[in-house]
């Protein structure tokens, strides 16, 4: 019997939202685990800094400035990654977030606010899965990891838009898993609970400490806490797992 391998040696991964927060941690962690990583995000300076960090440590990384809500840019992202590395084994859809004003009572929620959150968190996932999926389906192999959130299942007052988007990501993940299983392409999601990123702390303000106190394991999550489950889902150790949503939140969801 062979022990499951949690390695990504020789694999090629695209990580959207790879310039900051959880995405950055995953990109650096995947490179350390042996993967060639294409980092896609909007902030060019941060993207270049993270890419340099990876190559300075001996890893292989490519910076691909991308707005995941733009289908042309997403197509170009996939073309560039495939051209540089020859194949795509893993897609991590980490680009997302609740923005600078994460809490908006519905009656005050403009159409622009709704559209922006849905575009970034749900449509971006669809666009990236479609573009990368074409390559993976052709290869008859691949692993897609979407990022959900505790907000997908918990009623967070003031976040109807973000919660709806993340709930959408959950079911999209399951349906796509059912659709692409026949091509040996697995689709799963990670659902972080409260995580100590700069954007989360800024967005929640005083609510952050209140939520952190309620976590069973006694602390908020760190981006590093997401790396283990991401490596599980990206690697052959999860070869029979598809369509699952794994909460990483220090307690049940």
């Amino acid at each position, binding site marked *: *019997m062979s*022990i*499951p391998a*949690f390695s990504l040696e020789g694999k090629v991964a695209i990580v959207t939202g790879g310039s900051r927060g959880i995405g950055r*941690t995953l990109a*650096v*962690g995947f490179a*350390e*685990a042996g993967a060639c990583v294409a980092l896609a995000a909007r902030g060019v300076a941060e993207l270049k800094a993270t890419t340099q960090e990876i190559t300075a440590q001996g890893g292989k990384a490519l910076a691909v400035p991308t707005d995941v809500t733009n289908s042309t840019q997403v197509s170009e992202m996939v073309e560039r990654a495939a051209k540089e590395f020859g194949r795509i084994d893993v897609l991590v859809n980490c680009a997302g977030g609740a923005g600078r004003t994460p809490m908006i009572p519905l009656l005050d929620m403009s159409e622009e606010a709704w559209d922006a959150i849905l575009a970034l968190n749900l449509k971006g996932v669809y666009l990236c899965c479609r573009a990368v999926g074409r390559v993976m389906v052709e290869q008859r192999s691949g692993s897609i990891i979407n990022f959900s959130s505790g907000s997908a299942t918990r009623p967070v007052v003031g976040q109807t838009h973000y919660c709806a988007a993340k709930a959408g990501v959950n079911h999209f993940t*399951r*349906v796509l*898993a*059912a*659709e*692409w*299983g*026949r091509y*040996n392409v*697995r689709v799963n999601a990670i659902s972080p609970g409260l995580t100590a990123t700069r954007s989360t702390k800024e967005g929640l303000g005083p609510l952050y400490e209140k939520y952190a106190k309620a976590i*069973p*394991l*006694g602390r908020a*999550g*760190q981006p*590093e*806490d997401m*790396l*283990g*489950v991401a*490596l*599980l889902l990206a690697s*052959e*150790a*999860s*070869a*029979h*797992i*598809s*369509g*699952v949503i*794994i*909460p*990483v*939140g*220090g*307690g*049940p*969801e």
Partner: protein
Amino acid sequence: MSVPNFSVEGKVTIVTGSSRGIGKALALGFAEAGASVVLAARTVSELEANAQEITAKGGKALVAPTDVTDRAQLSEMVQKTVKEFGRIDVLLNVAGGAGDRQLRPPLEITEDFWDELQDRNLKSVFLCNQAVARVMVEQRSGSIINISSMSGTKPVAYEAAAGAAKAGVNQLTRALAIAWAPFNVRVNAIAPGLTLTARATRGLGPELVEKYSKDIPLGRAAQPEDHLGPAMFLASDASAFITGIIIPSDGGPQ
């Protein structure tokens, strides 16, 4: 930044139901990965054969014949483990199953059959968790993994009794996780789908196995070894911030 530690090297691991099927595969896999494994189940001859297989490859195994529905025997299992190894790091609750694995129309379920299934699949999980957690809570460390089933969430008419028990295992897992989180004891579950153990293939028959396998998105039923990946993940430090979750290991949504 350090790569997460998926290793179970040196972890003292009790595996119930380790005489056959999924339990045997997990016990052998953990031993090969360096864990010290305590084999707990009813059939001594099978346990001893598995222990020999482990030690022949240089691994560490201790046989602890145990009926997981018997509180006194569970207490002995725990004491024997602590006496031999000094600690308990991981508990894999695999003992259980749908009896003869035959599908049973609910009107034909006898009270005895119902009780047997609840005892073996739900009550035993509670008793095992309790017995081992007493040690883990004292240690302020430990990882418990309950093997549930797809039948705990996907309703199958003729698996009503087993399904009810497994749904109970899921909720028990979540409640215990909250209770013991302050002591750094994590409790999670894996929910396998159709797995080609001898008992499953015998109970369902080749036609049903083929029919069910066709419904699986990844195109095949599981081998027992397929569940080793999520089990090692949940047992190791790589899942240090994860507790109270159920990971389906079933080849995709059906």
